[in-house]
């Protein structure tokens, strides 16, 4: 067990200042006066303390693509980004569609111990969109899977989606959709609009996302399942989700940092670091995603951290892989776009990046807890004044396919504690090293 730690003068949720006394894996007091004699004291002034961040959408790539990321390197990247829990997507090789695979991922995460790795189970066998996977076996395994997704591919068949929504209710599961109408996006390379017309790249129309979400929320309303939309990228999607919520449909949705910050204009120059699925959209859509996050239509921010090796991005746009890494830049991007602009408070950030994702993933007994005495010490310290320039060589992730390289971000996580153990700390917190 780690030595007790006292973080003095830290701003809880960016609000009142207190001391965080952490011992035996829990928050034991909010006053340094109560600290055990052997506690290490670090100065938290100027920092914001949030409950450890929870990512509902991470690709750790193991098993299968250890050349791009492993559970170990991905855990390091997560801890460095301020995360204490990640949901590892099922599109590995083999696919996480059996109890065996999800238990392996779960155990490997435990063994590394830097972040709680919660495997996501595939909705369909092999992500093939044909047969439901054995959700029950995964739910009842040691990995306790509650989140099911074919992410990377949509559940395109409406009957299969209906069955998944119904069946997942058995385990309190949530069906998480990568909304992409496959026929409308064959060969698609970027958002279909003014820029794609000029660049001569095959278009990925907004309607391909919106039509699937519209169908799914109606299905969820009909059968009463729990439904979550990944990486919402268009104005129409935000409108449909807002409508569904107004009708009482049990839908939640996520925005990614990149869809909050970048636009399809970034594709000019054909740099595949900006190639992602769903694609970067025009400013009008970005504005709608921001507004949706601000008014709560979009419940959470999730990274869609998608590592790819250099050779899969150092090539022609059409040959490049979709996706970008995001764990280590999520806090900085969210601060830049939403906090520094006054659209969200740090209290809101705790909600969208910790409490609500923990609740959607049904890990809220452990994560997304209040910063209060007796709660598990899953804590992230953020320095909102630690502006930094994103560098290609600076990532803990095994991959460096970040669209933010060269960009300045206003702040970042400077220390992360998982049940009281420091899983990441910057030079300033050298003394917490055990």
């Amino acid at each position, binding site marked *: 067990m780690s030595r007790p730690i006292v973080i003095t003068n830290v701003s809880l949720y960016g609000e009142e200042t207190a001391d965080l006394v952490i011992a035996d894996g829990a928050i034991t007091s909010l006053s340094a006066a109560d600290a055990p004699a052997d506690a290490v004291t670090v100065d938290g002034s100027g920092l914001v303390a949030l409950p450890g961040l929870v990512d509902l959408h991470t690709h750790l790539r193991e098993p299968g693509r250890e050349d791009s990321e492993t559970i170990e390197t991905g855990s390091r990247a997560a801890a460095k980004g301020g995360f204490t829990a990640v949901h590892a997507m099922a599109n590995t090789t083999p696919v996480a569609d059996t109890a065996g695979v999800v238990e392996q991922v779960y155990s490997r995460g435990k063994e590394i111990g830097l972040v709680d790795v919660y495997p996501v189970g595939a909705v369909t066998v092999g992500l093939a969109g044909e047969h439901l996977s054995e959700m029950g076996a995964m739910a009842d395994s040691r990995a306790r899977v509650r989140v099911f997704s074919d992410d990377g591919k949509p559940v395109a068949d409406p009957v299969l989606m209906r069955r998944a929504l119904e069946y997942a209710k058995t385990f309190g599961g949530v069906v998480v959709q990568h909304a992409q109408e496959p026929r409308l996006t064959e060969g698609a390379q970027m958002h279909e609009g003014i820029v794609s*017309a000029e660049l*001569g790249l095959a278009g990925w129309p907004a309607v391909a996302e919106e039509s699937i979400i519209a169908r799914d929320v109606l299905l969820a309303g009909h059968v009463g399942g729990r439904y979550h939309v990944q990486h919402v990228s268009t104005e129409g999607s935000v409108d449909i989700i807002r409508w569904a919520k107004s009708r009482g449909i049990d839908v939640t949705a996520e925005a990614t940092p990149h869809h909050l910050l970048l636009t399809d204009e970034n594709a000019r120059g054909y740099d595949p670091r900006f190639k992602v699925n769903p694609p970067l959209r025009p400013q009008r859509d970005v504005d709608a995603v921001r507004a949706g996050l601000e008014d709560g239509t979009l419940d959470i921010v999730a990274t869609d951290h998608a590592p790819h090796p250099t050779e899969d991005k150092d*090539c022609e746009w059409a*040959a490049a892989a979709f996706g970008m890494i995001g764990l280590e830049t999520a806090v900085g991007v969210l601060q830049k776009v939403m906090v520094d602009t006054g659209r969200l408070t740090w209290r809101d950030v705790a909600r969208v990046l910790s409490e609500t994702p923990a609740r959607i993933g049904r890990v809220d007994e452990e994560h997304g807890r209040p910063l209060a005495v007796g709660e598990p010490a899953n804590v992230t310290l953020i320095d909102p004044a630690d502006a930094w320039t994103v560098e290609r060589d600076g990532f803990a992730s095994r991959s460096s396919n970040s669209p933010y390289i060269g960009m300045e971000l206003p702040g970042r996580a400077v220390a992360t504690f998982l049940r009281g153990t420091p899983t990441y700390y910057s030079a300033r917190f050298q003394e917490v090293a055990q």
Partner: protein
Amino acid sequence: MKHLLGTDGMSREDAVLLLDTAAQMAATQEREVRKLPTLRGKTVVNLFFEDSTRTRISFEAAAKRLSADVINFSAKGSSVSKGESLKDTALTLQAMGADAVVIRHSASGAAYQLAHSGWLRGSVLNAGDGTHQHPTQALLDAFTARRRLVDDPEGKGLDGLTLAIVGDVLHSRVVRSNVSLWTTLGAKVVLVAPPTLLPVGVSTWPVEVVHRLDHAIDRFDLDAVMMLRVQRERMTGGGDAFFPSPEEYTRLYGLDRSRMDRLPSHAIVMHPGPMNRGLEIAAEAADSDRSVIVEQVANGVAVRMAALYLLLAGEEAA
């Protein structure tokens, strides 16, 4: 000029310089000895990831007539199909000392990436990238039209002319290059295509869009009509098709004698080749006096000589 990647963003001054230089090059081709010593000692690589015998031999003839050494590198099976990557190919060419690389590639943006990646120091000439740009095709089209339609053309653009481009705008790099270039040179461009073959973003282009060829002929005083090659597989009416049938395409968009006869008497008929006779263009149109299709091919060599000259010889003069 270091690279020739597209006509978008090209200044009118540069465009006119290219056309005037092409005119000088064309004049040298009337002489008994057509070979010029200008690029002696320079190496030009034709890097073709897509088959295009016509474009490749045009560039090859242009480079050879300027006395450059020419290497043809046919890299069928690009990295898109997991062969050697564009990067490795570029590094190889760099190691061999290519002064200019003429690239044809199925991926939009490949020429731009080659020029800006740092993989290669030489000049890059885009000989067609995906559905993006094909600048020398547009230059030879503009050159051909200027010669035919503008009196005393040296130093002039295409001011006041109206060009109609008919066919598959969506998949055409020729259209994108021609729209930018003709507009820069002062011409009006009318695109004629069914909505299925127009990109969603076309409304922001500096063009007129008409959905029927007959309407274009009625509404505009056309000086030139450019018929695009149509791929039959896009016309089959199935789920992946853009058009119900080739027959319907010919009825609505084909240039036949009766439509040709309704054009102003001076109007010319162009086609970037290769033609589908009987589909987008009838034999009477292709072989008529109005047709400048064979001239386009001949002018292609002169235009490509001009481009190579300005990129490679101009570099030393500057």
